[in-house]
């Protein structure tokens, strides 16, 4: 049981890191929309258009590692079947 929980924790950490890495890797805050710069051809004004796009940031990685750590911590509480059978 402990091993399974630890693998789950590892999986959460890895998925978080991989998702962050291939989504940027963005060293800032998580973005739910990104600015796209445009230019008006007549006035030559640069202006911003916002596009919906999820870009995970360091807070996302932190949250993923935090959850993974919590799940890993739970593995210390869980008992393995072998320990339980020995006691009975």
């Amino acid at each position, binding site marked *: 049981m402990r091993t399974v929980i630890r693998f789950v924790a590892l999986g959460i950490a890895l998925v978080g890191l991989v998702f962050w890495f291939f989504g940027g890797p963005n*060293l800032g*805050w998580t*973005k739910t929309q990104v*600015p796209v710069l445009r230019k008006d051809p007549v*006035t*030559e*004004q640069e202006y911003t258009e*916002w596009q919906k796009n999820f870009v995970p940031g360091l807070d996302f990685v932190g949250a993923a590692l935090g959850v993974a750590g919590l799940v890993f911590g739970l593995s210390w509480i869980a008992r393995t079947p072998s320990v339980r059978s020995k006691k009975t």
Partner: protein
Amino acid sequence: MKNLIAVGLLFAAVHVSQAAAIKFDFKDPKGVNTVNFTMDAPLEAISGSANGISGEVHFDPAQPSGIKGTLTVDAASMQVPNAMMKQHMHGKDWMDVATHPTLVFEAVSLSDAKTVGEVTTAQLTGKLTMKGVTKTVTVPVKISYLKDKLEARTNGQMKGDLLVIRSNFTVKRSDFGINPKAPVDKVADEVALTLSVAGSAPRS
């Protein structure tokens, strides 16, 4: 009789000077008119933009120093990249959009004006109102008068002129009561603003 003529001439002169100033409407359905803002912060600078801009400016290309007008920014149009951050920014501590729905700049006077071709650079003094607090500020501006360029911008649908106003300046958020309690080592007090707006004056 002489007095009557003098008064008549005075009225005529005032009328001519008003007539020479062109009224530019800054209502912008395309969303090109933008105010960008940036505040320094530890992880990354907080940057965003607002494009809900409207207003009117009276500008005489022959006498730029007589510029008058008001620009209004819809506070709810302020955007940042993070949805939660945007919610905080529109909230009571920061911009309090529900109570103060607009940011207003009213042009009062223009000084140090230098015109080269269609571009005037100058120092514009005006009244800036944010979150219900009004301060007099003087900011550098670059004003481009684009004669007969409205047609190109509207794909030939309207004839007229364009006026483009650009400015970069800094204000302190604490001066306007924008979350003065927020520690400056978390979010800088200085807010860098970049304004780029275009108004149109259609001609029949």
